[in-house]
């Protein structure tokens, strides 16, 4: 049994949190959906940048046409990556195994989130040739590019937290995907007339205003412009924390049912 005896003590080292985190990460390396995610993300990010974003034709040394399409890529790809997070555990019965291990619900939620976020982060990091190209062809403001990457990563995290939370509501991955897509879309365009006008038509100016402050797109664009405002960063951190907390509560409440 080579796999067992050849293992170093480090491989077994860990805690409930570390165990779940590593298992999730391992899952991304061996499931096709995760590979599809990275391949499609990389191909689409490149294609959108050059064709839709007119990367060369603009004649500017920045990555704006690259980052501009990230919200739309994430909108489809992150719910697709995250839909199985809890739905699959519920369908296959492994949720019972997981929740009877000596691990707290929030630890399981966070471990799954961090593993998926790290995976998305790796896919994002693999777009570095884009930056190399700009850096080679011109003299971009690398600070702005770094901010763009940070904003993109944070936005992916927000989509991921929303999608993970909604995945716990159902055994069906398809339902989890559609729910996550709809809610992510709503938050992405919360400041857009598409969402705002129906609310204003209903006469709820307050709700419309409050929702407009929650627009993922606006906060992402603010960071991607290279302006690192504490408010924008806090927005993403709080959004992620909020959805992970709701996720934990739903998981705990299911035990009572």
């Amino acid at each position, binding site marked *: *049994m*080579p*796999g*067992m*005896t050849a*293992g170093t*003590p480090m*491989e*077994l*080292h*860990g*805690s*409930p949190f*570390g*165990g*779940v985190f*590593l*298992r999730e990460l*391992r*899952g991304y390396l*061996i*499931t096709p959906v995760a590979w599809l995610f990275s391949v499609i993300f990389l191909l689409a990010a490149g294609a959108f940048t050059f064709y839709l974003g007119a990367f060369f034709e603009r004649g500017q040394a920045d990555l704006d046409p690259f980052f501009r399409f990230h919200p739309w890529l994430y909108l489809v790809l992150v719910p697709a990556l995250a839909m199985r997070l809890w739905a699959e555990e519920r369908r*296959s*019965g*492994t949720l*019972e*195994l997981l*929740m*009877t*291990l*000596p*691990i*707290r619900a929030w630890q399981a939620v966070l471990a799954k989130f961090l593993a998926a976020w790290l995976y998305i982060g790796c896919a994002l990091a693999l777009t570095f040739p884009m930056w190399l190209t700009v850096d080679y062809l011109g003299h971009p403001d690398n600070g702005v590019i770094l901010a763009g990457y940070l904003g993109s990563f944070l936005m992916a995290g927000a989509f991921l937290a929303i999608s993970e939370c909604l995945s716990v509501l159902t055994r069906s991955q398809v339902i989890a995907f559609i729910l996550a897509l709809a809610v992510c879309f709503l938050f992405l365009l919360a400041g857009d007339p598409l969402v705002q006008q129906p609310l204003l038509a209903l006469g709820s100016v307050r709700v419309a205003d409050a929702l407009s402050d929650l627009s993922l797109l606006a906060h992402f664009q603010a960071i991607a412009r290279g302006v690192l405002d504490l408010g924008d960063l806090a927005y993403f951190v709080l959004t992620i924390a909020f959805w992970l907390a709701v996720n934990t509560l739903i998981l705990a409440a299911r*035990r*009572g*049912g």
Partner: protein
Amino acid sequence: MIETEHLGKRYGKFDAVADLTLKVAPGQVLALLGPNGAGKTTTMRMLAGFLMPDAGCARVCGHDVVAEPLQARRSLGYLPEGAPSYGELSVAEFLAFAARVRGLTGIPGRRRLDDMIERLQLQPVLGQTIETLSKGYRRRVCLAQALLHDPRALILDEPTDGLDPNQQREVHALIRGMARDRAIIVSTHTLGEVRAACNRVAILAGGRLRVEGTPAELERMSRYHHAVSFRAPASALARELLGRLPEVAAVEVDPVDGRVTVFPRAGQEIFHAVVKLLEEQRVRVDELQLERGRLEEVFRRVTDAADLARAA
């Protein structure tokens, strides 16, 4: 030690488990029996911390499952219903995951893993993806996960479901071997398993505890307890005479195999009287035995009565 006190769980108006008080001490293997929907799995899920009790309390090794969930879960090994596991992982990866989560690290952890792999004979499939395994292997993989951290308390929901008779015997031996200093609860639909692996029985029906005791005590509740059964080609007259014995309650002939069973009146011993009468009548007896009692019959009676009570 596994204990429940007045444990209850409701789904809407339906009592899945009601007023259940059980105590399983180290050295005891309790067979949890009952028809489907009797509350066995719900009880086990509450003990394992997967479901919250609505009433009463449950403790594992002295730790309340609600107040000290992590301590309770650390001292418990749990095989959930259906033996779920992560199908996309290999057996080695899955067990390494379980070891990591249980904090089994370094050389002792690896020794423990190797020991479990050997005892459950998982070597041939270590590198194989779990979803490609047979049902029997999958159950043993999940069983290995439950035993890995050498828990003081064990709860196994149908541990031998899907195993062939040889594998079942091995699991029974494993359970008996672990029983010495552990408290174990095993749910099963196989009454043969009770004799093979358990030293106590609890029968649930309609969410309530109906009977509890040692297998021998339950067999004593059977009308077959201390009945005498025999097979004889021509025994019509003898049957007539047996029925007249004062200590005999009834004489029945199995319509299928012709086996004659003589039932005693409550508390009476009839073996010697039956043998004597058969000898006096010079009945040629092919085979004769003193019955211990039938768990199947007790099970049916207890759970039927429960159905009746619920319907009423």
